[in-house]
């Protein structure tokens, strides 16, 4: 998966606990994204980063925070997990943003998160 590692691959947690998902890339790509995938909703952008310490919100950012202290790592944190955050979370990277001429997103293999 294009040098992208997501960890953990599976996580079961309880409502109200904090959870951190990690995305690590070896491609030195500038842009990194966190999506969640849910039946009937497709892929929805949570947060993205366009450089170290540069992040912005996506369409479903409530309840999530992110950090990027190094080019290769992008962390997604659920401060207090809720059952509605049960989902499959995908990290994606790209070299030139979603709109450069030769751009494409490379996705990781996903993290299945269950909040009980």
């Amino acid at each position: 998966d294009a040098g992208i590692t997501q960890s953990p691959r599976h996580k079961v947690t309880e409502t109200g606990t904090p959870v951190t998902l990690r995305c690590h890339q070896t491609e030195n790509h500038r842009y990194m994204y966190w999506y969640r995938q849910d039946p009937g909703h497709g892929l929805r952008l949570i947060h993205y980063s366009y450089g170290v310490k540069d992040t912005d919100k996506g369409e479903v950012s409530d309840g999530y925070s992110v950090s990027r202290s190094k080019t290769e790592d992008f962390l997604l944190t659920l401060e207090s997990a809720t059952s509605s955050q049960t989902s499959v979370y995908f990290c994606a990277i790209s070299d030139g943003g979603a709109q450069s001429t030769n751009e494409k997103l490379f996705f990781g293999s996903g993290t299945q998160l269950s909040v009980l």
Partner: protein
Amino acid sequence: QQQVKQSPQSLIVQKGGISIINCAYENTAFDYFPWYQQFPGKGPALLIAIRPDVSEKKEGRFTISFNKSAKQFSLHIMDSQPGDSATYFCAAGEFGNEKLTFGTGTRLTIIP
């Protein structure tokens, strides 16, 4: 707010047949329309993409048809094979905006 509407939600096609998935968008500023393919347990992967300066793009058995006036685009899979069974997502993006907006996905099953 669903900016990219995808249909059908699921599709069953006989081997050798043509699979057609449709998407419609609302934002006229969109100028990049990719399709992603996802196999179970994997992340999506770019399949084919089109920009609005052309009405059709073909890569092997996969073709995107684009209708700018109707704000619609579709994926056609010719001679569909069991290995094409996957979930397909259309998406749309806007130049200068780093974000893609995805459709809700179509689960395609090719039966022998």
